[in-house]
């Protein structure tokens, strides 16, 4: 007989394990079973079993080990029913050996941690960028398909299809479940960090709870990466960049709903602990003497938060350094903005005009151009640019900020 309190205890225990250890269990299962779909199905089956068994017999000593063992047994049943290739026999043999080690249920200490493989597989460059983000959020963070769909402004159905297509692509393309080799490490890590940062910026652009969740998940992911691979300065740099930016989350919008630039923010609203952690990480990263784009971006973010206002001279040098890694129009734009801040608006405008073709669809370009034109007192052109930037702004706070700047022209 199952009593109500036992059922509640089982549900609570399962929820907790799935929140804390889903990624870890899934990674171990992908490793053992070979495909994402099998691993997910098996874990799902095991969870359903867990509710029944734990409700009746109590929560086992190692719920994670229990889930892993049952998931593998469920997978064997499924594979047996598939009347396909010869290697089915082989894979069953491997699995059985593993699953029939009776009485020796794994604990969190003995379950191998395969999450580094999982992280790199989800962010393989052969997968389209949007699917990398979706797979990462689904499999490692355990976000629901609905939440991921909301983040992308997609329907749940479209997102569900995207995720399942990505999973079958991993199998069909032959993307391996491995940690990249040394000669591939830097390039592959860059793709992973870019994906995590994209999750972060997507969240940062939103003012709602989902935005906060996405930022926290991006920080969680990069922190996890740092735990799994200590001593990598780019991982530390990316984490620092996110922490320093996130620290300003509560100060970036004023009481009247207008966006506030870092230099004008009420610094008492900054999360001091996050700032301190970000700065310490940057120090550690830079002491390793292996610079990279995320460390530089982290340092730029730090310079924006200097006590006496942004250190523009230092920021200009940092953009020059960043240009070597990322000679992109967006970096050129930010560099030009720094020139304007350092009292060279005419030079900045020349640089900006050169970027017009590449960046005409990029809202920050129009905002920056408007500001520089205002600085040069070219009022009609500035007004037009402000209007353009406001029309393209994706949130109300930025629109208000631009409207305020435009009003100052008069």
């Amino acid at each position, binding site marked *: 007989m199952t009593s109500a309190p036992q059922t509640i205890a089982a549900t609570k225990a399962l929820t907790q394990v799935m929140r804390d250890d889903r990624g870890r269990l899934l990674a171990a299962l992908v490793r053992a079973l070979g495909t994402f779909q099998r691993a997910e199905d098996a874990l799902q089956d095991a969870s359903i079993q867990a509710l029944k068994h734990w409700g009746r017999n109590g929560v086992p000593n190692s719920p994670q080990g229990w889930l892993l063992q049952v998931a593998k047994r469920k997978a064997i049943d499924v594979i047996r029913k598939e009347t396909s290739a010869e290697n089915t026999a082989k894979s069953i043999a491997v699995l059985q050996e593993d699953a029939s080690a009776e009485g020796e249920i794994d604990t969190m200490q003995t379950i191998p941690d395969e999450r580094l493989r999982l992280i790199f597989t989800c962010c393989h460059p052969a997968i389209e960028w949007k699917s990398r983000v979706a797979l990462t959020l689904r499999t490692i963070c355990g976000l629901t398909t609905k939440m991921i769909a909301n983040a992308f402004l997609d329907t749940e159905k479209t997102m569900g299809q995207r995720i399942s297509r990505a999973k079958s692509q991993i199998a*069909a*393309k*032959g*993307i*391996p479940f*491995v940690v*990249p080799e040394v000669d591939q490490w830097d390039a592959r890590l860059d793709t992973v960090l870019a994906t995590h940062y994209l999750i972060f910026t997507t969240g940062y652009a939103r003012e709602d709870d989902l935005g906060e969740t996405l930022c926290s998940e991006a920080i969680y992911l990069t922190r996890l990466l740092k735990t799994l691979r200590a001593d990598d300065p780019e991982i530390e740099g990316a984490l620092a960049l996110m922490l320093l930016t996130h620290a300003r989350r509560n100060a970036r919008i004023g009481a009247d709903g207008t966006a506030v630039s870092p230099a004008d923010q009420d610094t008492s609203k900054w999360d001091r602990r996050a700032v301190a952690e970000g700065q310490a990480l940057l120090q550690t990263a830079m002491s390793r003497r292996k610079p990279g784009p995320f460390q530089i971006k982290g340092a730029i973010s730090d310079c924006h938060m200097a006590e006496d206002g942004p250190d523009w001279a230092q920021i200009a040098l940092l953009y020059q350094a960043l240009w070597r890694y990322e000679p992109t129009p967006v970096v050129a734009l930010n560099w030009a903005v720094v020139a304007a801040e350092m009292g060279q608006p005419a030079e900045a405008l020349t640089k900006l005009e050169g970027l017009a073709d590449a960046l005409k669809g990029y809202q920050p370009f129009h905002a920056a151009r408007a500001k520089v034109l205002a600085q040069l007192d070219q009022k009609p052109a500035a007004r037009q640019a402000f209007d353009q930037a406001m029309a393209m702004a994706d949130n109300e706070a930025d629109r208000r900020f631009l409207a305020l700047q435009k009003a100052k022209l008069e």
Partner: protein
Amino acid sequence: MKYMILIYNDATKEPAFGTPEFDAMMGDYFAANEKMKADDVLRGGEGLQGIDTATSLRITGGKVETMDGPFAETREYLGGYYVIEVDDLDKALEYAALIPSAKFGTIEVRPLMNFDPAG
């Protein structure tokens, strides 16, 4: 897994025959071939004659329509292929990156279905 490596080239971007750059490219092709053979991953491959030799056909309403020219009017055309057998995509991409045409065109890597009608 077996992969086909398809080489898409823009002939106008490739070094011209008779130049030192052309010789260097051929040298790199030779080196790539030797490496694939030495690693025992090469299962086949060929270069294709130019697109001016291409003939396309389709059947419309039961009638064979024959046309002069390649399938699609693009700038980069299929110029040749390799078939290799390796463990996974990462390995396949490593060999694909050895192909010198990657510097002038695009290399596409696709798994085969293992459905060889020639047996």
